[in-house]
Every structure is written in C-alpha cells, then in structure tokens.
C-alpha cells in the first residue's frame, strides 16, 4: 500500500515538471464543461417541498426536479412541463393531467431507477405533503410550509390515478390559484420508486438528503458551507422532446377523446405550449459555490471563479454594469421587504404601538441607504407588477411627534427596550438587513426606544423566529407565483403561523375571511376589490410595515449564454451554455 503511494508519488513528481511546462492545451474546453454558481447560503434541504427559502429552491427546484407545470419566464403564463396537457372541469373542482412519457429519473451513485416517470410519482409527491397519514409525511420533520400556509392540503379532496400517465385531482373549494401553485418551485415531483427503496432499506430521510428527480442535473455531492456538485443528467427528457414530437401528439389525442365524452370539461386544453429548450448543452457539471459574503461573490465573479452569482449587493450594481465581461440582468421582482412585529408579545399586540413604530421611521431613507434606489417604496404587500396592485393605498408617514404621542398613550415608557432581528443573509427584498436595523435603531432612539440588533446564522435565525423569540424582525418575501394570494396568505394568515412564514405571528379572522372570499371567484375585478379591502384592514391593524419592493438582479459572466431570470425567484441552469 505504502509502496504503491510512494511509487506513484515518484512517477507523479517526475511528470510534474513536464506537466507545468506544457499545460496549455484544452484549458478552455475543460472550463467550458462546468458552470459555477456562487450562491449565498446553504440549502436547508434538497427537497423544496420542505422549505420556502429561496436558497433551497434555487439550489434544487429547477436543477434537480421538474414540476407538473411551469411558468413561462417571459409572460408568466402557465406552460406544460411534466404534464404535457391538462383539463379543468367547468365547476373548477377537478383537474386532469396527462403526463409525459419517457421521462427518466436520475441514475446516481446511490440509486438506479428501473422505470420511467409515471402517475405513481405524481401521487406520491402530492400525497407526501397532503396526507398526514402518508408514511413519508413525517419524514424530515413533517412540515411543508408553503402548502400549509396556503391550506392547500385541506382543499384537495383526492388525487387519483386514472391510468399510468393520467392523474385527476379533485378540490373541495374552487381555487383560482391552484394551477399556479402547482407550477411553483415547491411543487416538485419526486420518485416514488426511490422512496419505496429507501423505505424498505429503513432510511427514508435520505430522500431529502440524497435527492433523485427528473431535472436537468443530478446530485453528486454536497459539503456544507462549501459547495454542491451536480452532474449532467444524460437522459434529460427535454432533450428527447426535441427529437420527436410524437409524445406530445399522442397525449393530446388522449385528451381529445376524453373531452368528447364528457361535456363538463372546460375547453382550455394546453397543447405543446412553448417548452423552453432546457437541453443541457456542453455543460457536464453544475456547481454551487456557497459564498455568503456578497463582496466575495462579486470578486469571484470578476476573477471568473464564478460564472454567475446570486443577489449582487445594491452597492455593487454600478460596478457590474461598468464591466464589459459581466452582464447584469434585471427584472422588477415579485417581492416585499418588511418590518414585522411579533403581535403575540406585549406591547406589540397593541396596534397603536405598531403604528407608532411605523411612524417613527422614514421609509424613503431606508430605500436610499439600503437599496440605493434599486427598489420602490412599498405601501402594501403587493408590488406594482401584480395585477391586484393598488396605487392609491394608504401608507404610513414619517412622523416622530405622532409616534411619541401614540407611544405615550399606549403606556410605553421612555427608554423602553426592544429587539430588532436582522436576517443574516442578503435577499433581493432586503440586501442588508443589519444596516437597515442600524438605521431603524437610530430612528427609534429619537422616539425614546432603545433597540438592540439580533442576528444568528440563517438556520438558527429562522428556527428562533418560528419559536417567536423576536420583538420585531426585518425580513421579506419573494413570491412563488404572481397570484396576490401568494403574498397575503403565507405572510399573515392564521394558517401561516405554524408553517413559519407569518413572522408577525398575526391571526385575524376578518383577514382570513376576506382572503378566502377572494379565492372563490375567477373574476379579476372582483378579486381586486377584495384585496383593496384587505389593504385597508392591514393599514389599520398594521402587523407589519411594508418597506420596499426590490428589483431582482442576476449577475453573470458573458461566457454564459441562455441565462433566464425567473421573476418568481429561482435560477435555472438547464439550457445554459458556456463558451470561454
């Protein structure tokens, strides 16, 4: 053994000189085979069903998995993905999905699939978060925050297999955002076969640690705080799609037959919607280089150690624009940064105190100092990009005198101390929470409140937030789809408290009632009117202070072709090419 090493060492040393001297050859060719993405933090898990943070969904959702449906990144319309087409009944309660054939799961060093994707996988994936009795439900904690916050599990009456490639889902109530929810980053399709294998082997939790999906890349290795390595999925289905359209054609036929039989089916069959060419090109590897510090990410981007980076800091945008070898993609984001009060803790259970605090801060200043004007002032939870946006909504104004008065009336004494929790990571909606916290600290000082800033590492931070240990927190939300319900419900509904997205720990019956009402109709005007009422209600009770809607940025090197910004968050590297 040792002899072997020694022998190899000598041989290696001899070649070392040779190597260094003539190492010009296929450098470019080699570096073209891998994309390195500098991400900002560790994913919590490799199953996006389990976590709403965009770090997790960036790292997994579009790289490892596919969903039944997708959003078109340009138009925001819902397009087919694993479901090649679908039908909805006229009452809006039953959805039928025709599934794509010949979709292969990843073959990895820990799992070799024996069959292609079929209806069982869809049923498994949905039932895992839907049914508490499902054997996999409680694996990895048993919390599915996104679905819980929307109450989706309760709304689904059944998920049924019609045949190997057709699934029907029936709802209790009409939900106009249902399809959109299935297209979000979190509604990924897992492998039922893999789950069964693991279950028999007695290690079900591996399903979320060593993932298997149908996406363009397959999992190779992960080291916390360092990197995630993905390899190209050779048999990715979108590639075969390009070769022959017969799959799609046949599936469309299936639906045609059915709709003739049953007149109840609505006539909105989606056929062959423009499927983006997510073929993996020359890229053999995708690597997430985990780099929490934004300045370091930019530095790596400049030196070419990264090909693309997440969340460039607002201060760095000018630098990126000024460089020829870097591209800055920019889209108005569907997001909201806010300051939420823990409404279950006195004195923050008093709306007057919350209003006083809101009046104590100058939002415009925060915008300038923290976002460097790359964000718009938020009046409500919804950004202007949403169809339910209300331009004339009421907004809090900077008024320290009023603030002092309100505080005095509420019995909050001079020198009262509170905590401001500042999230430790950079997000589009809040690129520097600590800095914002420092600014707010100053404002609060002016109205006689001593604020201390609290921060932990991201995982601990979220855990403690969920336990409600904070007085107030600076955090935000990136929408998963363009539906307004995706803002209002996860952020402030009662159901979102246990799922851990309701940072204000606020539960209000009127609010929940209005939200539910809005989902019962498909009429956009009607819904808009309801959401305006919701805005009014939020302005009065003020569980959180909306601060900003930020633009969403993505910086990448010019060598990368085909990078697409997804307005609903989420990067995707399928179809990206690299030419040095």
């Amino acid at each position, binding site marked *: 053994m040792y002899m072997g090493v020694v022998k190899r060492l000598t041989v290696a040393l001899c070649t070392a000189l040779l190597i260094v001297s003539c190492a010009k050859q296929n450098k470019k060719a080699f570096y073209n085979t891998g994309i390195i993405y500098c991400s900002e933090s560790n994913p919590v898990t490799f199953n996006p069903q389990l976590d709403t943070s965009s770090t997790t969904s960036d790292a997994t959702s579009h790289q490892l998995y596919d969903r039944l449906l997708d959003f078109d990144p340009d138009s925001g319309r819902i397009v087919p993905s694993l479901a090649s087409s679908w039908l909805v009944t006229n009452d809006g309660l039953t959805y039928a999905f025709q599934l794509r054939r010949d979709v292969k799961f990843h073959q990895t060093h820990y799992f070799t699939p024996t069959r292609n994707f079929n209806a069982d996988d869809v049923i498994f994936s949905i039932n895992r978060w839907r049914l508490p009795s499902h054997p996999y439900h409680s694996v990895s904690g048993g919390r599915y925050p996104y679905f819980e916050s929307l109450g989706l599990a309760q709304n689904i009456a059944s998920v049924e297999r019609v045949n190997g490639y057709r699934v029907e889902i029936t709802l209790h109530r009409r939900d106009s955002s249902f399809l959109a929810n299935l297209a979000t980053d979190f509604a990924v399709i897992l492998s039922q076969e893999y789950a069964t294998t693991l279950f028999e082997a007695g290690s079900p939790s591996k399903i979320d640690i060593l993932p298997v999906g149908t996406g363009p890349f397959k999992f190779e290795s992960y080291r916390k705080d360092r990197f995630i390595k993905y390899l190209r999925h050779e048999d990715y289905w979108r590639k075969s799609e390009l070769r022959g359209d017969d799959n799609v054609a046949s599936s469309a036929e299936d639906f045609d037959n059915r709709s003739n039989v049953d007149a109840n089916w609505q006539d909105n069959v989606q056929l062959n919607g423009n499927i983006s060419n997510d073929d993996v090109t020359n890229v053999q590897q995708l690597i997430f280089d985990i780099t929490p*510090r934004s300045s370091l990410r930019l530095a790596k981007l400049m030196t070419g150690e990264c090909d693309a980076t997440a969340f460039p*800091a607002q*201060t760095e945008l000018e630098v990126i624009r000024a460089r020829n070898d870097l591209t800055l993609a920019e889209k108005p984001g569907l997001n909201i940064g806010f300051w939420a009060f823990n409404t279950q803790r006195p004195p923050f259970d008093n709306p007057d105190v919350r209003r006083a605090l809101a009046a104590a801060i*100058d939002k415009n200043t925060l915008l*300038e*100092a923290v976002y460097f004007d790359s964000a718009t002032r938020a009046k409500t939870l919804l950004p202007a990009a949403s169809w339910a946006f209300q331009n004339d909504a009421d907004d809090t104004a900077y008024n320290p005198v009023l603030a002092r008065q309100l505080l005095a009336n509420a019995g909050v004494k001079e020198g009262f101390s509170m905590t401001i929790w500042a999230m430790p990571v950079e997000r589009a909606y809040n690129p*520097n929470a600590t*800095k914002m916290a*420092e*600014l707010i600290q100053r404002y609060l000082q002016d109205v006689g409140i001593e604020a201390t800033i609290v921060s932990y590492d991201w995982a601990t931070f979220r855990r403690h937030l969920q336990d409600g240990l904070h007085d107030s927190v600076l955090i935000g939300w990136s929408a998963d789809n363009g539906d307004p319900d995706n803002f209002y419900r996860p952020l402030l509904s009662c159901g979102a408290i246990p799922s851990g997205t309701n940072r204000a720990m606020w539960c209000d019956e009127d609010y929940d009632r209005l939200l539910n009402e809005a989902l019962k109709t498909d009429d956009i005007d009607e819904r808009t009117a309801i959401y305006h009422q919701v805005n009014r209600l939020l302005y009065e009770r003020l569980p959180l202070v909306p601060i900003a809607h930020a633009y969403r940025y993505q910086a990448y090197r010019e060598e990368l072709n085909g990078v697409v910004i997804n307005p609903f968050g989420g990067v995707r590297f399928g179809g990206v090419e690299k030419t040095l």
Partner: protein
Amino acid sequence: MPQFSLYEEEFHPSPWQRTWAAFRSSHIAMVGLVMLGCFVFFALFAPIITPYDATEQNIDGLLIPPSWTANGVISHLFGTDALGRDLFTRIIYGCRITLGTAFITVVLAMLVGVSLGTFAGMLRGVRSSIANHLLDALMAIPTLLIAIIIVAILGAGLLNSMWAITLALIPQFVHHTRSFVRAEMKKDYIVASKLDGANRWQLFVHSILPNMIETLVVQGTLALSIAVIDISALGFLNLGAQSPLPELGVILADGLDAAYLAPWNVAVPGTAIFLMVLSINIVGDGLRSALRKRVSH
C-alpha cells in the same frame, strides 16, 4: 578619598537619560514616536478633534468620497461610509478604542504577568519546573483560538475580546519576567541585599523591579503592537467589537461590504491600523536598540 569633587562640571546622565539620548539620535525612531504621539493625541482628545458624532448617520451624504478626490467635500475629510457616517470621525474614535483597549489590555496583562512571573522566578525546584513547562505550552496556543473559546463561552463583544487578548498576552510577560528574575536572583547585588536581611518583597520592589522596568517597557511595546493587531483582527472577524462601535477592525469589515463602490472605506481604516502598528513597532525597535547601545557602552 578626595575632599572635593574634581568633576564638578561633569554631567552624569541617568540610565533613562542615556537611553533617551540614544533613542533621540535615531531619526526613524523619532518619526515613529511622533506618529505614535499623534495616535495617542487622537485617542485622548477624540471628542474635541472630531467634527461629528461617530455613530451619527447622515442620510443625505452616503458614501461621499474622500476630500482629495474630485467628488469629495472638505467637510468630510475621509468621506463617509454606507450609512453616511463621517469616516474621519470614526477613524479618530477608532484609534481611541483600538489603541485604548490595546493599552489597557497590555497593562492588565503586564500586571498579572509580572506578578506571576516574579512568583515563578522566585520559586525553586519541581514546582517551578512544572510551572515553567505548562507556561511554555500555554504560550503556544494561538490568540485567535483563545478568543474563539472566550467568545463561545461569554459571547462576542469588545470586553470579551479584551479578556481573550489579555489572557493570550500574559504568558509572554510571565515567561519574560520569570527568566529575568531568575537571572537576577543569582547576581551579587541581590545576594548582597539578601544578606542585608531583605525579604522577597523588598528584594523585588527595591532591587529587581527598577532593573526590570526598561525591558518591561520594551516588552510592553511589543505586546501593544500585538494587541492592536489582535483587537482589530477580532473586530474584523466579527468576534470582538460589534458594529456600530467604531473600532478600526469593525470599520474595515463594515467597509468591505461597499468595497467596490467606496474603496476608501477599506483603505483608510486599514492604513490607520497599519500606521499605528508600524509606529508602535518603530518606537519599540528604537527603544530596544537604544537600550542595547546603552548596555554595550
């Protein structure tokens, strides 16, 4: 014995004066001393010198470049940081905090170290041997490690980082004092005082300490430069002083976030730390060579 002094006109400088004369003759050392003097002046009179408050945010003036650049304004000599705080003010206060805490740390470490070292030096036999070896081993543990452990136990903060650095500096004083005391105890003048009936305490105060002070000062300057570097390093790593406290390492770390847009936020605090350490080292070096010159004559 002559009844009159033959050398009335003669001036016999004290050892200190001779050291000072030797020190003064080196121009570099004097430059270092003047620089250090400036830093001490900044540290002592920070509130008088500075035009603004160190934590006062000025939203209208974010990231103003230093005054010597085209876009700079003279009211902010070094420009402002990402929160609109005047960098000049913060640097001056930074000198105060960094140098001040470093100084306190060194004095503390010196007091403890010298007493322990004297004790160990006067000990004999197995006990001294054990103390000796343990100390040597402890001396090897890196400051950063001690700081990390203290932060883990007590939490991050300037005070805790001071404890850590004090702890890390003590062994070297102990070591130094111990070997000095031990060497000195063998000398004849100590034996003479012993024969005069001096007890250990008197021996130390009247005989050993006066001889040790100079080397202690030199050792102190060495420790001071280490302490400055360590305090700012811990601040930089977010293990020591916490933002918004204007500590030089913290200012540097804060500036790093805006490093591309505002490079002066990194350059100025870095230069300040560097110059401070450099001046301390130059003075220390000058003192050492002055002492050596004096002893060798």
